[in-house]
């Protein structure tokens, strides 16, 4: 069908044109983001010198790393429980609903998390960045879970049986066969979780306390004071990081198919 190819390209243009414009003006020497005057890297230098941006980036990475580790471990265990253990009560329920938060509007999840944390804060009196980290870890679980379960489902049980047949006790079967073969799935899940945590806005906006500004929140705040190529530069760096991770994901998935 000839029209489909054109439509596909139109989709690509619609998706990437804004990003292209953003990237182009991050290299503008002028302060304008609509009028091109010449090439410069000044805005990148400025962005990297900006303490606010540096602090926000550090907070973002810290939270993303924590969320990635916790959610990937939880997702791996959940995926193993739904595909590798003997049937347990509620297994079908877990299997069916673990991905459902992806369908709930994020604003609802954000408000729900906020109310729960308010309750916990009232009871325990505890404050700090821990709440934000836990919130991120929680909403990253379904993202980490998907590729891990997909991998487990394509892995035949026979390999694990073969290991058991060759005198490997259950723990050795897991560490020597299941885990190494599951590796690409876990890496894919972790990267997905990392990206999702890194660019979350809505939940972070609700939960974050003072001094817990992540990069997307910082950008949002800066835009209110007017868009400058500095913001474009920071955004471009974020795009670059995402693209790099996606490329890595692609390579890992290629290895999975072998």
């Amino acid at each position, binding site marked *: 069908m000839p029209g489909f190819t054109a439509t596909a390209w139109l989709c690509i243009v619609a998706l990437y044109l804004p990003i292209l414009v953003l990237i182009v003006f991050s290299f503008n020497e002028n302060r304008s983001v609509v009028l091109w005057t010449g090439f410069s890297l000044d805005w990148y230098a400025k962005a990297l010198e900006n303490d606010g941006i540096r602090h926000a980036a550090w907070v973002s990475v810290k939270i993303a790393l924590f969320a990635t580790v916790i959610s990937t471990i939880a997702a791996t265990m959940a995926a193993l429980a739904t595909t590798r253990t003997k049937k347990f009560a509620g297994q079908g329920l877990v299997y069916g609903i673990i991905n459902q938060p992806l369908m709930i509007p994020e604003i609802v999840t954000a408000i729900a998390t906020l109310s729960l944390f308010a309750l916990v804060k009232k009871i325990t009196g505890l404050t700090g960045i821990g709440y934000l980290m836990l919130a991120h870890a929680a909403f990253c679980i379904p993202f980490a879970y998907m590729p891990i379960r997909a991998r487990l489902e394509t892995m*035949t049980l*026979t*390999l694990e049986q*073969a290991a*058991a*047949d*060759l*005198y*490997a006790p259950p723990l050795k079967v897991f560490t020597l066969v299941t885990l190494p*073969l599951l590796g690409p799935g876990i890496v894919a899940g972790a990267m997905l979780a990392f990206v999702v945590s890194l660019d979350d806005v809505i939940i972070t906006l609700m939960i974050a306390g003072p001094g817990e500004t992540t990069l997307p929140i910082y950008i949002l705040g800066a835009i209110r004071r007017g868009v400058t190529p500095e913001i474009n530069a920071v955004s471009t760096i974020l795009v670059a990081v995402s693209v790099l991770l996606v490329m890595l994901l692609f390579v890992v998935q290629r290895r999975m198919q072998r």
Partner: protein
Amino acid sequence: MTGTEIARDRKAAVSARALSKTFGQGEFAVTALDSVELDIFENEFFTLLGPSGCGKTTLLRLIAGFELPTHGSIALQGQDITDKPPHRRPINTVFQNYALFPHMTVAENIGFGLRMLGKPAAEIRQTTERMLALVQLEAMAGRRMDQLSGGQQQRVALARALAPAPKVLLLDEPLAALDLKLRKNMQLELKSLQAETGITFVFVTHDQEEALTMSDRIAVMKSGKILQTGTPRDIYDRPTHRFVADFIGDINILEGTLEHTDGDLARVRLKDGTRVSAHLGTASARSGEVSVAIRPENVRLAGAAEAPTLTGVLETIVYFGAATNLHLRLGTGEEIVVRNPGAVDEGRYQPGATIGAVLQPELIRVLE
């Protein structure tokens, strides 16, 4: 000496008693194995033969420990292993699709079992080298699984399962994925490997020719039950059940009435009135309607001056090099196949001609 007499002075490697396995529950329950009694002897090449769904693979998986029986028990050299997990059974398996570890080299795959048994590194290395030599893969030690051909993977699977020197080796249709020529070679290799190592082999297949070629003894299975156990000759020459007779090679089956028995011999009146004597074997019938069976190669064309046992109209002639099959339609509507060694005189044997056939009386069997 019959099969059962041999059995008495041989030690059982694997014994199954009243072994049953049911999958699912309630009205969806499927009985995969139904009260199986089985003794597989030391150093034996034993084959479980049957069509798909007959329970042969389930039986193998129960012996390996991948499934637990619903009823009954399994013993290894007289010791009960019914509840032992697979990693505590000195039994190794060659899987149908080999199940080689894709993230390990050939040598690592072969050494895996010994490593799990906690053998010293030097011994693992030595045994691995010996196994690589045994299956002629010395040059492949460092290769990954996706760099091997199907036949090579098959050998790695075999070497991996043999390396820990198991008491019993289970083989689940390991030759099914190979092409015909490779399969024939591997059949002979497996047979000599079994003789060399002295390990008890339990081989699962649906290929009757494969079973006859390789086995010391065969158990023919159907619908979760073992119908007959015996040497390839027992199974081929003295089938006890219609199913066994039919499943293994070609067979002529004729209906008749049992008139008289004398020891192992029975007089059977066929539908056209011809009386033949047949061996009873283990058949329990002493009167009434019975089926008798005879192999096509035990039926010959009647000579010119000879009285035929049966006469029929020649319908088709199938020539296949070493022999010719002549399909005769009897007056009763039954069909009988005569296998004539080599070609037949085409002038004399034309479709439509009336032909006489002689049944070798000592090779007619009464079926259960």
